[in-house]
């Protein structure tokens, strides 16, 4: 059941990231997808062939730490963009085209 919950969470996160225009909400969607990945790591470890060797848990903890840093960087970027462009609307942020 747990992988299924993982798929659900990824889908919800992806939908949020794709449909929302607010940069912060997109970030939240991305966090959701990350947590779904962590959930899957735990689940595949727990029900996998070597549940005695705490690798999945270590992986998840590591991932959570990285995600925390990433969220901080992402939020920092959003704040800077907001200061620069006075908006957090992603559709207005189209100056990086070729």
């Amino acid at each position, binding site marked *: 059941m747990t992988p299924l919950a993982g798929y659900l969470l990824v889908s919800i996160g*992806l939908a949020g*990231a*794709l449909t929302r*225009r607010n940069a912060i909400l*997109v970030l939240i969607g991305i966090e959701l997808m990350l947590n779904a990945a962590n959930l899957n790591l735990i689940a595949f470890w727990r029900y996998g062939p070597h549940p005695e060797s705490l690798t999945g848990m270590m992986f998840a903890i590591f991932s959570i730490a990285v995600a925390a840093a990433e969220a901080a960087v992402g939020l920092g970027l959003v704040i800077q963009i907001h200061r620069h462009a006075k908006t957090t609307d*992603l*559709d207005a*942020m*189209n*100056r*990086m*085209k*070729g």
Partner: protein
Amino acid sequence: MQEAISIAPQLAASPIAEILWLIPAVPMAAAGLSALLKQSARKTSASLAIGSLSFSLLLSLIAFVHVLGNWMGGITTREVVNLTWIQFGTSNVDLGWVLDPLSAIMLVMVSFVGLLIFIYSIGYMKSDENYTRFFCFMSLFAGAMLGVVIANSLLLLFMCWEIVGLTSYLLIGFWYQKPSAAAAAKKAFLTTRIGDVFFLLGIVWLFAQTGTLLFYNGGSGSIEHAALAGLLSQPAAFGLSAAGAIALLIFAGAAGKSGQFPLHVWLPDAMEGPTPVSALIHAATMVAAGVYLIARVYPLMAAGALAGGTTTALTVVTWVGAFTAVFAALIAVAQNDIKRILAYSTVSQLGYMMAGLGMGGVAVGIFHLITHAFFKALLFLGAGSVIHGCHEEQNVRRMGGLKADMPLTFLTYAIGMLALCGFPLLFSGFWSKDGILEAAQHWSVAKTPFYMLVFGALLTAFYMTRQVAYVFFGHWRGGKPAHESPAVMLAPLGILAFFAITLGFIGTPAWPWFRAFLNGKAAGFDWHVLMERELMTLMGVSALVVFIGIGVAWSLYGDRSPKPTASDSLEKFAPTAWGWLSHKFYVDEFYGMTVIAFYAWWGRVSDWLDRRVWGGIVAGVAWAFSLAARLNRFLDTNVVDGGFDKGCEELTVGGGLLSRVQTGRVQTYLRILALAVVALAALLIWSSKA
């Protein structure tokens, strides 16, 4: 008539033999030094030249006394010092020097006569602005000539031989502003070069056959017994052995240098040089180098001779020598230039030496070489003194009566003239020429050379008397009155005159010291030899011939003083013959019509070939390349450049198209990413099922 030569095999070289190389090296070094001097350093260059040659003379005398001492002790030695110059593979090219009676005598002669002529040059060249250059060349010449003399290797001899030829060229053309001097220098260089090419061929052949160019090397030298035996067994062509063929090639070189017919044409023209040069190079030493060369390689020339017999090479040497002796003497009769008469006389006397070598062996030829060197140097220096005194006048018909104006020059000149004529008993030329005549008389092949040489002696007496009568007797027919030369020029004349008389006494039949010394025998004094019937007859004939020559010439020319424009006394008798003689038998004209005309024609043909054929081919190739280059340029601009430009354009267009994908909307990217992930996942799942 040829005597066996008994010279002891090589001993360990003595100290003087070890340092023999200094004799040529010091004058050469002096020449190098004075080449660095400024034109104004006149005294320094003259002192360098004279000092270095004095040093050479001193060493030569020590060497001579050393050899003489050995000879008196009963052993005649030949000391050689050899060293390896180049080594390639298993063969060596060796150089070396030799001290034996022949080289010792030549060393003393060359350095002594050379020194006297150097001293004379101080006076003669006094007013020449290129005094320094003159002494530089003269020193170089002296060094190279001494090198020729001491060489124990045909290669070393050839090197020095060529330096000698070079200095001859430089000194004939010393007054290069005169076109005639420049032409004479070129003529001398080219003519001797013809002989030298054959000489070089002989050297190469000898090296190929024997593997060494050393003359003597303790039994393994190229003209020692073992090598000669090998050469004799090797057939060449026309029935000659390799030894004979090589000997003839070497003789061709000697003939070029010693002005033997048909290569004699350069020597009379060489008189364009300063008179001391004519005396030193073109009378006393260099032209004698050819004779010396034949004497040096005499074992090769005589290889294969039966007892008392002769070889093809020696026969050729004899005939060429005898012919040249008469031929040049005939020409000398009808010349009017004081130096030119002496030049033809030199050619003639060199013919005597060659004939002497061919018929009588080394000692006979070399004895005449030595005496001739002294009296001919004396005559040339005397002629220089006359020219100097007559304000650079060289035509004997514009002189006359100089016996009163230049008494000392006259006295010494008369001694030289009598020595050259072979005036009986007193003068050296008599004894040395008699040696040659005696050998000719006993020659086993033919008697003709004997008659030729006797006739030559008659002519010699005739033309010398004619010259002396024109120059010193009668009355003065020139412009400004003549004056006597300074003491620095007269002193060498006196010394040479002394030797022109006394030198004969070391080689008389009664006391054949010279021959004995060269051949390594003991010399005994035997007065009675002179009284032998045969020898008395010969000496009588020889004396008679000289008297006839002098008498006839005196009756024709003595005290007559004809006008310079009047025809010669002899011309009145036989105008046609005179024409032939005064035009030197048209040899120059003949060469001009044949050899030179051929070369001129060949030059024109080559020029035509060069311009039309080779030039055309080169131009065609150039044209083809230029065409190819144009084609290349066309391809470059239109194909390569065009293609490149087109490629770049397409890249720009492609980049523009791709840049449209990049909208800048982050969520579009994310969408594509998600779609791609889904597609990848689907692919993975689908493929894992299969």
